[in-house]
C-alpha cells in the first residue's frame, strides 16, 4: 500500500463548489420524515425544509403566511377559513389545492401519531372542508384559543402522489423514505443514522433570500471529537446546538467560525415527582430547590438565562414578573427539610437524567453533593432517552428528580402549561411532576376557552404563582441556543416552535 501517496490525497477542502452548501451536525438521528409521524426536534428539522404548512412562525412567535395567503377567524373563534396562494405548487409542479389540505389532515388523524394529538378533540374528522380549489374551512368542536398556533404543525402532502404510493398503510412506508411536499428543499439522499442531504428546489413557489442555500447536509454525530475534526477539515459550516463549551471555543479559534447565541423559549427543569416519597412533601421539594446551585449550573455547566417561573420570559406578555425566582441557600434548604415529614432520618432520593449526557451527569453530581449534606441518600439513575419516556408513564417508576428540557411545540403558553401540568396530559416525559391538581387543570381549561388575551395573561400568571409555591418544577434556566456558524452563513433566529428555526429557506450565504 502506497503510504506516501495517501498524504497527498487530502484534497477534501479544495474541491470547487459553485454552490452554497451548509454542512451541519445534528446529535440525534432523523426518526421519520413523514409529516403525519414527526414528533421530536430532529424530525421537525427535516420536515420544515421538505414540507410547507398553511402557516409558519417567525422568530417573534407570530404566525405568518406560507401556503395560505390569508385567513379569517369567525367571531366566536369556532371557524377558520384559509385562502391558499394561487401560485403554490408541489415539488412535482402540480398546484397545491384545498383538497390536499383536507387529505393531509384526514391522513394525520387516521395514522394518529406525531402532531395528531394537537388536533384531537379540537377538530374532528370531516370538519375540514374544501369550499373550492383555494379555500379550506376548519370547523372547531369547541373554543380552543391555541388552535391557530397549532396550524403550522399540519404539513401538507401531495395527495395525488401519496395515493399513487398508498400501499396497505396509508403511504407510511413510501413517505418514510420519500417526500411529497411543497417545501423549499428536496430530499437528495438519506443514510439513516449518518447523514441526510437536501437540495434547493429551483422551482419553489415561495420567496427565497438572495444568495440562498443550495444544499444542506446534516451529519449525525454527537461526538465532540468528530465535530472538531469535521470543522478542521473545512467540511462543517454550522455546529449543532448541543456541543460542549470546549468544542465551541476550539471552533472559534479556527477563525472561520463565529458564535451565535439567542435566548429561547425552551426551559430546563428539575421536575420533582409530587406523587412519590419523599418529593410528595412540598418542604422536601422546596429544600431541593434551595439546594440547587443555580449559578454554577448556568455559568459553568450549561450556559443559559435565569428563570423565575416555569414559563420562559420569551412569553413576555404572560410571564408573572412579581415572583421572585428560586435561589441557592443551603441554610433555608436545611430548614425546609426540618419542617418536612421526613425530618431526622436518612431520606432516600433518586436523581434521574439522560444517560450519556455529560452536562446532566455533572448537574446530577452537583445536586448529589449538596443534597447529601442535608441528609439525603442519593441514587443516581441515568437512563437512555427512550427509557425515560417509558418510566415517565407511571408515578411509581418516575424518579424523584428529573432533568428535563421542554420547549413549546406551538407558539402559545398553553403548550407549556397543558403538556406539563394538566392531568389530561399526564404520563409523558414532559409531565414527570405528576401534578394532577384540579385547580390547575381548571385554570388551564379556562385560558383555552377564552379569546381574550388579557384574561389569558391573568390566568397564566396565577398558574405560575401556584406552581412556584408548590415547587413541582425547579426552573434551572431558559436555554440559550448556540451554534458555531461559518462567518459566511446568515439567517439564524430562534423560533418558539419545535425546530422551525432550521428552515433553511430563511438562511443565506454572504460570501
Amino acid at each position, binding site marked *: 500500500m502506497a503510504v506516501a501517496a495517501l498524504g497527498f490525497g487530502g484534497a477534501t477542502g479544495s474541491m470547487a463548489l459553485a454552490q452554497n452548501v451548509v454542512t451541519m451536525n445534528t446529535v440525534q438521528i432523523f426518526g421519520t420524515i413523514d409529516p403525519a409521524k414527526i414528533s421530536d426536534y430532529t424530525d421537525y428539522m427535516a420536515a420544515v425544509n421538505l414540507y410547507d404548512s398553511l402557516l409558519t412562525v417567525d422568530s417573534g412567535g407570530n404566525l405568518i403566511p406560507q401556503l395560505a395567503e390569508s385567513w379569517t377567524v369567525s367571531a366566536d373563534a369556532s371557524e377558520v377559513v384559509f385562502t391558499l396562494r394561487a401560485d403554490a405548487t408541489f415539488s412535482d409542479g402540480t398546484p397545491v389545492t384545498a383538497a390536499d389540505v383536507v387529505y393531509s389532515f384526514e391522513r394525520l388523524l387516521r395514522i394518529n401519531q406525531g402532531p395528531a394529538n394537537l388536533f384531537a378533540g379540537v377538530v374532528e374528522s370531516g370538519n375540514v372542508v374544501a369550499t373550492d380549489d383555494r379555500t379550506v374551512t376548519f370547523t372547531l368542536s369547541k373554543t380552543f384559543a391555541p388552535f391557530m398556533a397549532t396550524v403550522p404543525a399540519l404539513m401538507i402532502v401531495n395527495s395525488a402522489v401519496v395515493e399513487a404510493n398508498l400501499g396497505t398503510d396509508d403511504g407510511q412506508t413510501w413517505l418514510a423514505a420519500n417526500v411529497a411536499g411543497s417545501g423549499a428543499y428536496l430530499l437528495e439522499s438519506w443514510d439513516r443514522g449518518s447523514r441526510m442531504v437536501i437540495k434547493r428546489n429551483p422551482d419553489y413557489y415561495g420567496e427565497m433570500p438572495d444568495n440562498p442555500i443550495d444544499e444542506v447536509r446534516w451529519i449525525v454525530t454527537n461526538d465532540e471529537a468528530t465535530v472538531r475534526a469535521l470543522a478542521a477539515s473545512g467540511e462543517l459550516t454550522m455546529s449543532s446546538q448541543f456541543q460542549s463549551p470546549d468544542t465551541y471555543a476550539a471552533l472559534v479559534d479556527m477563525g472561520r467560525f463565529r458564535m451565535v447565541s439567542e435566548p429561547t423559549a425552551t426551559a430546563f427543569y428539575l421536575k420533582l415527582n409530587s406523587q412519590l416519597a419523599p418529593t410528595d412533601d412540598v418542604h422536601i421539594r422546596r429544600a431541593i430547590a434551595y439546594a440547587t446551585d443555580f449559578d454554577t449550573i448556568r455559568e459553568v455547566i450549561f450556559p443559559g438565562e435565569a428563570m423565575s417561573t416555569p414559563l420562559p420570559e420569551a412569553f413576555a406578555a404572560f410571564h408573572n414578573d412579581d415572583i421572585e425566582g428560586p435561589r441557592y441557600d443551603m441554610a433555608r434548604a436545611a430548614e425546609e427539610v426540618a419542617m418536612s415529614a421526613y425530618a431526622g432520618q436518612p431520606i432516600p432520593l433518586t436523581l434521574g437524567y439522560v444517560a*450519556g449526557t455529560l452536562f446532566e451527569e455533572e448537574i446530577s453530581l452537583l445536586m448529589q453533593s449538596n443534597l447529601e449534606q442535608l441528609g439525603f441518600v442519593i441514587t443516581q439513575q441515568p437512563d437512555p432517552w427512550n427509557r425515560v419516556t417509558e418510566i415517565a408513564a407511571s408515578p411509581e417508576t418516575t424518579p424523584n428528580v428529573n432533568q428535563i428540557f421542554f420547549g413549546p411545540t406551538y407558539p402559545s403558553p398553553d403548550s407549556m402549561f397543558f403538556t406539563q401540568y394538566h392531568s389530561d396530559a399526564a404520563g409523558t416525559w414532559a409531565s414527570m411532576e405528576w401534578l394532577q391538581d384540579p385547580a390547575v387543570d381548571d385554570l388551564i381549561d379556562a385560558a383555552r376557552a377564552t379569546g381574550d388575551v388579557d384574561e389569558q395573561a391573568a390566568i397564566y400568571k396565577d398558574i405560575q404563582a401556584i406552581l412556584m409555591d408548590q415547587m413541582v418544577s425547579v426552573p434551572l434556566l431558559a436555554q440559550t441556543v448556540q451554534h458555531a456558524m461559518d462567518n459566511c452563513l446568515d439567517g439564524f433566529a430562534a423560533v418558539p416552535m419545535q425546530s422551525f428555526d432550521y428552515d433553511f429557506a430563511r438562511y443565506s450565504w454572504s460570501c
Partner: protein
Amino acid sequence: MSVSGQKPLSNAWQNWWRFSRNPTAVVGAIIVITSVTLALLAPYVTPFPEHVGAVVDFANRHQAPSAVHWFGTDNVGRDIFSRAIFGLRVSLLLAVVVLGLAIPVGVVLGLLAGYFGGWVEIVIMRVTDIALAIPPLVMALAVAAVLTPSLTNSMLAIALLWWTWHTRLIYSITRQLRSQEFVEAAETLGASRAHILFREILPNCVSAIAVKTSLDAGFVILIGAALSFLGLGIQPPTPDLGTMVASGASFLPDYWWESVLPGCAILFVAMGFNLLGDGLRDLFDVEDVR
C-alpha cells in the same frame, strides 16, 4: 499436555523455581498482585478516596497531571488517579463474578460431554457451537440493552456465553484422558462415575484451567471495559474505567489525560493477567490453551 497421575511434592519447589526464572510470568504476577492489592486497599492508598463519591469541585476541573493529581482531574474536578484505582475494583469484580459463574458450568459440561460421549456429547457440544457463533460483545450489548443497563446485567450477559470456552477446553482434555490407563484402571476397580470425573480426570485439568482462567480474566476485563465504554456500565458516581475513558473522550485532545490514563489502567491490569497466563502456560506446558 501433562497427563501423568500424582506428582511428587518436590515438584512444587521445582515449579516455583521454574516460575521465578520466567520473566513474563513474574512480571504478570507482580502486576496482578499489585492491582489486586491496590483495589482492595483503595480507600487507604489513594490520595483522594472521597472523590469516589459525589464530590464536585468545579474550580479544579480539567487540571493536567501534577504532583497533587498524578492523573489530573476530570470534568467535575475529581482526582482521576484515585478514581482509576477504585475503578480497578469494578474490573476485578467483573472478572471474578463472570469466571466464577462460567468456569464451574463450563468445566462440568465439558467433563460430561468428554467422558460420556453419545447424545450427551452431541447435545452439549452443539449448544456450545451455537453459543460460540454469537459474538460475545454483541450478545452482551443485546442482553444489557434489553434488560436495564447495569453492571449486574453486563456480567450476566458475558457469563452467559463465556462457559463455552471452558466446555470446549475440558471436553478435549477429557476425551484424551478417557482412554488413559489410570482412568480405565479406576473403571475396572468399580469406582463411581462421579469419582472418576471429579477425582481422576478433573485434577488433570487443573493446570489447563488455571492457565485459561488467568488469560480469561484479562479478556473479561476488556469486554467489560468495552461495554461500559458503550454506556452499559456501573452507575455514576462509582468509578468504572471504561466509563472514564468514554466520558474523557469528549475532551480530546485538549484534556487527553481524562481518557488516556484510565485507558492505560485497563491495559495494565489486562496485561498482568495475560502475562501471568502466558507464563503459567509455559510452566505447565499446556500449549493448546488459548
